[in-house]
């Protein structure tokens, strides 16, 4: 499987995701944002970090870069797109995913391991997980507070487009398990065709027991199927 990781000035999880992809036997390429052509890829990853310093609004400026037009084109042709953290923010800024990521409700950067629940395990990104499976996974962001209008929220629910929700270690989805104030504890969503996944937690940080755990591996192995 061929993957491409888009690198913006200020991306800083690009090496991490590349390491994880290579570990999972993807054939990966890094793509600099000024390039105008994407290599042939089955998966495009928009990585985490602080593209353009998160200045103005996180993801806003990367959303205007040259390469993004190619990503949009590829997305419309059905290519799989994964946006992690800042990548998720960028995807919402481009309109590939609906909604926005606002400041965390406590106005602080949050880095910790939290739990999420797999809501839809019937997608290219999540088929190796079980529905309602609880994962322990790292988050690290300033703006992860997902918000969208009620029409879109209904669409997310009715069409099973919510990928993950924040929960406690027993799987309860409630206010106290919500780290950042996200609407309905949403941690990740799909677009309506389910070829695009945006998520705040970092699966690439959970592929190595010595460093953390391996709860992120199945996301990558799902894609390989």
């Amino acid at each position, binding site marked *: 499987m061929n993957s491409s990781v888009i690198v913006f*000035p*200020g991306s800083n999880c690009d090496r*991490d995701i590349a390491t994880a992809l290579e570990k999972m036997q993807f054939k990966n390429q890094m793509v600099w944002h000024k390039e105008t052509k994407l290599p042939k890829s089955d998966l495009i990853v928009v990585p985490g*970090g*602080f593209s353009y310093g998160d200045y103005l609004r996180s993801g806003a400026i990367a959303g205007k870069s040259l390469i993004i037009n190619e990503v949009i084109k590829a997305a419309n042709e059905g290519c799989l797109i994964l946006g992690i953290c800042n990548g998720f923010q960028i995807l919402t800024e481009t309109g590939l995913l609906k909604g926005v990521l606002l400041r965390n409700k406590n106005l602080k*950067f*949050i*880095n910790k391991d939290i739990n999420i629940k797999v809501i839809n395990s019937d997608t290219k990104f999540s088929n190796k997980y079980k529905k309602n499976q609880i994962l322990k996974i790292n988050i690290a962001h300033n703006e992860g507070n997902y918000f969208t209008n009620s029409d879109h929220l209904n669409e997310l629910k009715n069409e099973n487009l919510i990928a993950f929700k924040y929960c406690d270690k027993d799987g309860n989805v409630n206010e106290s398990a919500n780290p950042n104030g996200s609407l309905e504890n949403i941690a990740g969503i799909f677009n309506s065709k389910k070829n695009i996944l945006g998520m705040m937690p970092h699966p*690439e940080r959970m592929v190595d027991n*010595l460093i953390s755990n391996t709860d992120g591996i199945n996301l990558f192995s799902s894609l390989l199927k």
Partner: protein
Amino acid sequence: MKITNQLIEKHGLKPEEYSTIKKLLKREPNLLELGIFSAMWNEHCSYKSSRKHLKNLPTKGKKVIQGPGENAGVIDIGDDDAIIFKIESHNHPSYIEPYQGAATGVGGILRDVFTMGARPIALLNSIHFGSPSHFKTKSLLNGVVSGIGGYGNCIGIPTVAGETKFNSTYNENILVNAMAVGHAKKDKIFYSKAKGLNKSVVYVGSKTGRDGIHGASMASAEFDENSEDKKPTVQVGDPFTEKLLMEACLELMKDKSIISIQDMGAAGLTSSSVEMASKGELGIELHLDKVPCREENMTPYEMMLSESQERMLIILEDGKEKHANEIFKKWDLDFVVIGRTTNTNKLTLKYNNKIEGEIPLDALASKAPIYDRKWVKKKLTKNKVDFKKLKKVKIEDALIKILSSANHSDKNWITSQYDQMVMCDTAQKSGADAAIIRIHNKEKAIAVTVDSSSNYCKAHPLTGGKQIVCENWRNLISVGAKPIAITNCLNFGNPENPKIMGEFAECLIGIKESCEFLNFPVVSGNVSFYNGTNKKNISPTPVIGGVGLIQKLKKTMDHKFKKDDSIIIVIGKTFGHLEQSVFLEEIYSILDGQPPEINLINEKNNGENVLEIINKNLVNAVHDISTGGLLVALAEMSMGTNYGVKINKPKNLTNSLKYFFGEDQGRYILEIDKENFEKVEKILKNNNIFYENIGSTQKDYFEIDKEMRIDIKELYKINNQWYNNY
């Protein structure tokens, strides 16, 4: 412009120093030259008060590739890997503007490390605030923590360890020390020494603005009638640009384009150009009209003294300009050839080809003043605390009071604001005795930690100096790392005061003794004097940053209890030394007495044995005993796990408070499986190590026989309240 006495004073120069300048120049300096002397001869750049004492520190060793004198220290960790690290203070700016002050402190120390060719892999910090009840403390804490996080998170380097302390001695002068650790290939280390004539001197990075022009800001009325607020003394950090600068430099470092490279830190363009040229025994000529400026009409004076962040000076090999330029253009950074190396041994500054200033380099560097300042020894107090006179306190109540205090509360509120995981090599995060960072794609790892102890250093600087090095060593040992070398940030008051100078001199003697004995050399550091106000200096606060090596990281060692019913032993003797302890400070507000003694022989033996036991896989958890003593350490091992302890009451000590809260040095707590106990015992006996079997772990409860019993969840709660309630 005429150089008046007032102008000289405003540049922080003494009349005698000015006479020396005239002698060295054989004429009067002009304003630009005066500014340059003031920048190079100030304490921060010249180390004029400290150099004499720093010279005594042990800086060599088998593993030392580069000791003090370069941007950062370099050690050998085997194969072709080197670790490059340094700590630096940013105290004053952080007090004025905590967010930006702390942020630019992080930015500055990162540049010191990647200048030498290292990719930074970890950030640490040591932050000291005034009393929590002081009206400024809360906003300073908030600002500093978010500034440190803001910079490190954005640039994408994990902040993995640190220390946070509150003490009224810092009410008017907080401390913000930042440490950066990087990894490089041994044959790809870059130095600042210039070589070769007529080489291009290149300016890269951000544009120069009027930030932090020092001396000048105060004297500005003299040469610029346009008000004070034109010249901000606090710089604003731009981590995004720094990230680009770092990537661009590391990219350029891949081949052989760079002869020498130096970041523009304090005194910006002045110190970087002077250092490069004087180390290379060359001259340097700069064309200031070429300097990329952010503001209009900047004068040569302003350009030379600006402390704008995120800039570097590079001397390139012939013909590499185009290649280098392309790299910096790719990263959207300024790249301008602003000068050349010369054979004049002078710093020559031109603007539109007219000479604006010219100074022999040795006048700025090797002939800068060095002072042998008066200092007095601190007498070791004979005062003992009379326990009979103290109000009785229950062990449990004392423990709870300590665990819920500002200084001993869980630091989660802070550390969750730092990205600790980015780069995916953080094997052990904040919260442990030392953090562990794996070398990317390798089996080996390094351990890093920072420590200080201002109470001990205040009470007796020599003992305190020894102690901090030992504590740092212990923290590295506790996670299974072999300690290799340290960096130090020496935060002191006014060196012109013989008492303060004495604290400095004696702390350094202490540091030297420990470092020598433990074979734990100093490879880099920073001195920060003049902390405090005129009348009130801060307690002496040297901060030690240590690096250790774990040859093969198969699993990490930490201090959390792992199992039910394992044996708990204490290595090292417990005498019950309570003077200068947290117990006396927190419970009785007593600050009198001697700090605990350091026995370097025991320290070394105990540490080496603990390391052997860890390496032989015979132990589940290890924790050094530091402030708070045995009981606090045991509580730290229990909280957040499912296992507490059942401790036997001490038999041979009359006072159990002394036993449980005494801060005798050189001690470790080990959790050992019953089936491993014999093997451990054998090692310890063979090596004549004193140890005590004090009890065992048990589920859920923290218990001292017939004395106290409390649910560890309760302890955890108590330990996690302070920050959230503050």
